């Protein structure tokens, strides 16, 4: 067993493939930890209606509103890029078009996020 496992040079090619993988990994971890907390706060409905409403009220302030925007941004990227990964694996031409598909993912993500931000921020900041 070699003592150190230091590869000579980089094993990865960088560029779209590697960066999309980094983003997919980070968003996956973020969503996972959100989900742990999310099930805990939802479980307050079993404590009392007042307890649940008090905690949910804190989700409605502007700072949490921006946090929800970030969470949705992470989820939408992870979801679209996940579909891209599935296409790369199962579609015959997937590997050939993986780069074009990443730019489609980014484009679709931007469109969805612009529409969602307008709607969500008007809920959070509007009266």
């Amino acid at each position, binding site marked *: 067993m070699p003592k150190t496992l230091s590869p000579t040079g980089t094993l990865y090619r960088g560029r779209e493939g590697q960066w999309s993988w980094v983003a997919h990994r980070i968003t*996956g971890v973020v969503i996972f930890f959100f989900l742990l907390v999310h099930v805990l706060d*939802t479980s307050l409905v079993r404590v009392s209606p007042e307890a649940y409403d008090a905690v949910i009220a804190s989700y409605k302030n502007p700072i949490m509103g921006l946090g929800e925007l970030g969470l*949705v941004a992470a989820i939408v990227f992870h979801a679209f890029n996940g579909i891209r990964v599935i296409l790369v694996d199962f579609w015959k031409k997937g590997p050939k078009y993986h780069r074009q598909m990443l730019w489609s993912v980014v484009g679709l993500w931007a469109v969805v996020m612009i529409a969602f931000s307008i709607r969500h921020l008007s809920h959070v900041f509007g009266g």
Partner: protein
Amino acid sequence: MATPTIETPRSGRVSPGYSRTPGSRGNFEMIAWLFMRISGAILVVLIFVHLYVNLVAGDGITGIDFGFVAGKWASPFWQIWDLTMLWLAMLHGTNGIRVIINDYAEKNSTRMWLKGVLYTSTVVIVVLGTLVIFTFDPCPVIDGVAHVADYCPAP
């Protein structure tokens, strides 16, 4: 400098020094790989509808309170929806984190500890979430005080 040659994982030419577990672990990793893709495809639908109904439609986040949850869970449709989402998202996420732990934690004992914490949290959250959906009471009586809402019988 020449580019190092990297053999494919199943080629049998991988130096044994890089192998953590002796022998084969059967099909587990292949099933896990497949599960990530199948659950991912289903989760897109489950989560996007969840976010649409809770954050976009109606009053969005400002409309969420105990009564909103009571309204949704009055229907078995949303109970099953949330139950499926809970199980699939937790198993998908847990397997994803397991892979990440395997990637970065090089010491056997570190990997074992991290995975122990991971699997414990997963079981706790999945059991808790499941119980919450099935034991939900829209009109609880707490310390003899009945919850007041237009959908609850007058005390």
